[in-house]
């Protein structure tokens, strides 16, 4: 076995970037009180437009810009329907996903890579000079940093500026925001537009960097996972990072396991996860935040699964069937959703706003 943990970490950062980008956009949308389930559709539309324009022009920036625009434009359909024609947000969002899957497949027919596209690496001065760690952790492409920068930016705007306060107020109580004279629909349309742009970027990152190619259904549920991560993060920007990197970790783990064939890597990962779960639980009980097993459900789930896995290993399990490993990210998402019960959801989330009601 030859696995470099730092290399692995770098791979996790790349694998996490698309969900992170899509999730930060959706977080802003949901904070404004709108539930857009069309992330997957906007993402895949961004993926196809990013791929075509990027490879058509040979410019990575052009590709990403086109993708963001495509995602944002698609989101306007959702915005128009839900905000002006007052349609049900759940159904409309689903419709957007179905529509986006069809549209991307239609647009992507015969899409070919005319010009090669390379996304420039952006070594961070000084940090990238750190021996062995630096070149790998601080020598990513610009989009990886952009995604992290966006988190900081969204946090700052949301909690340190008036615009952000209005956004949160709209999501908490749209009637009150309206009564105070804030343009609820405009705020929400802008948030939806931003969310669409972020989803588009996320899609382009998949088709231009991560995979990089175009096939139908290339996003493979990443948009839905982004939605799950927003819930996981309790609508807090920095917690998105944890969620996205956790998901990226599972994805990378699964890919490596498939390539590697032995369970050594899984042993390490599960071991680390179990230790982390135990530490979190312990700190929470010591600081008296929550000690009961039901309040630390995620830790409990992880510990139980780790013990089961350990027993299986001791009993002599040597491999696990590769074809089932692709389930891991989805199962992990469910586990995370179960373990961390949603709290602090914006109070107006998903509710239709009509000025006279």
């Amino acid at each position, binding site marked *: 076995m030859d696995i470099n943990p730092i290399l692995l970490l770098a791979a996790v950062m790349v694998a996490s970037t698309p969900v992170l980008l899509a999730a930060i956009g959706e977080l802003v949308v949901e904070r404004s009180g709108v539930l857009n389930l069309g992330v997957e559709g906007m993402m895949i539309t961004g993926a196809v437009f990013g791929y075509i324009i990027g490879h058509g022009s040979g410019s990575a920036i052009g590709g990403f810009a086109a993708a963001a625009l495509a995602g944002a434009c698609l989101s306007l359909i959702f915005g128009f329907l839900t905000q002006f024609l007052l349609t049900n947000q*759940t159904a409309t969002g689903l419709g957007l996903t179905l529509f986006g899957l069809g549209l991307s497949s*239609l647009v992507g027919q015969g899409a070919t890579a005319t010009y090669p596209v390379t996304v420039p690496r952006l070594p961070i001065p000084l940090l990238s000079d750190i021996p062995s760690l630096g070149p790998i952790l601080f020598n990513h492409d610009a989009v990886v940093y952009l995604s992290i920068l966006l988190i900081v930016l969204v946090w700052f705007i949301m909690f340190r500026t008036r615009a952000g306060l209005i956004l949160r107020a709209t999501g908490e109580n749209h009637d009150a925001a309206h009564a105070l004279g804030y343009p609820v629909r405009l705020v929400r349309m802008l948030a939806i537009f931003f969310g669409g742009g972020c989803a588009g970027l996320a899609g382009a990152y998949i088709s231009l960097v991560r995979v990089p190619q175009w096939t139908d259904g290339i996003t493979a549920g990443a948009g839905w996972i982004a939605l799950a991560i927003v819930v996981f993060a309790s609508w807090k920007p920095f917690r998105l990072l944890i969620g996205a990197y956790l998901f990226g970790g599972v994805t990378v783990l699964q890919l490596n396991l498939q390539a590697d064939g032995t369970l050594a890597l899984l042993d390490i990962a599960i071991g680390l996860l179990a230790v982390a779960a135990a530490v979190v639980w312990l700190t929470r009980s010591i600081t008296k935040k929550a000690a009961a097993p039901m309040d630390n459900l995620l830790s409990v789930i992880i510990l139980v699964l780790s013990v089961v896995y350990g027993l299986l290993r001791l009993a002599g399990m040597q491999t696990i069937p590769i074809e089932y490993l692709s389930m891991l990210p989805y199962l992990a998402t469910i586990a995370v959703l179960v373990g961390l019960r949603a709290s602090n959801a914006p109070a107006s989330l998903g509710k239709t706003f009509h000025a006279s009601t």
Partner: protein
Amino acid sequence: MLRLEKRPQPSTFWTYAAPLVAVVVTILLGMALFASLGKDPVGAIRAIFYEPLFGEFSFYYRPEVIKKAAPLILIATGLAFGFRAGVWNIGAEGQYIMGAICGAGVALAFYPSESRWLVFPLAIIAGTIGGAVWGLIPALLKVKFKTNEILVSLMLVYVAQVLITAFSSGLMRNPDGHGFPGSRNLSQYPAAANSELFAGTGIHWGVIAALIAVAVAYVILTRHQFGFDVRLAGQSPKAASFSGVNPNKLVILSLLLSGGLAGLAGVFEVTGPAGQILGSFPKFYGFTAIIVAYLGRLHPVGILMAGALMALTYIGGEVAQDRQQLPAAAIMVFQGMLLFSILGVDVLTNYRLRFGKNEVR
């Protein structure tokens, strides 16, 4: 400026007119789409809506429409209960696949049995249970841990897809299949085959089941306490809890019901039109059924008509693909437009359009 004013009562006229207007709007939008793809818009619409029913080869297409409509109607009928109750089962696709896997699994376990009266009913029961159990997972998680059922049911779709691909080349692979992926062909296994009941009509057991489901759903929704509770919980959750509706019970029942019906659709598909467990098992019924449910305004009779219409766009799409070289994906876009139109036009049922100053009362 245009503005919307809430009607005191939903408009009866628009309740019935809205779906029709939506179809017309979609046809217009679709024609624009097809024209922009460089296809003859009128020809394409004709190929989609006219040819399969009344064209030269309608004797071939009509049964196909029926076969396609049956699973859509079955799944959508189940979904309608959940959607009305505000329980968002988006994972019908996964429940449908699990129904197919379980049904096929039981049928194959008896291979090569000849007792049709044992194998076929058992397969149907197994498929229904398989779908229902797959639906029960998000239900229990929601009830126990308040987990979002939309996301869980969706994640389970991906899991089901992984499973069916894995099974088709592993557990359930045809031992006589020279190593190619895919199970034995069930439609050629008389004890389990869901073949046409009347030759050349396309009517198989799944079609009968869909019609029964629509009739039963209609009675439940309009005349039974459960239907009343479902509607009440969806429209006004607090009033439902005051009335004595147990929301947890409703979540479990509606997911069991929609999962079971989706599973049922899966068995009929795998033992009939599709024939085998394969990675390329006809997919997307579970998602298209969401459009069908909404197009039918979550009403069983509406769903019956919407399912037929949606099946028509599928088969018509294939005709248009043959004749006009219209890409298959264009039909998906067209279906998406249909859902947007029905949702958008529906606003007229509950709101009145007013011209004048945009003002708040």
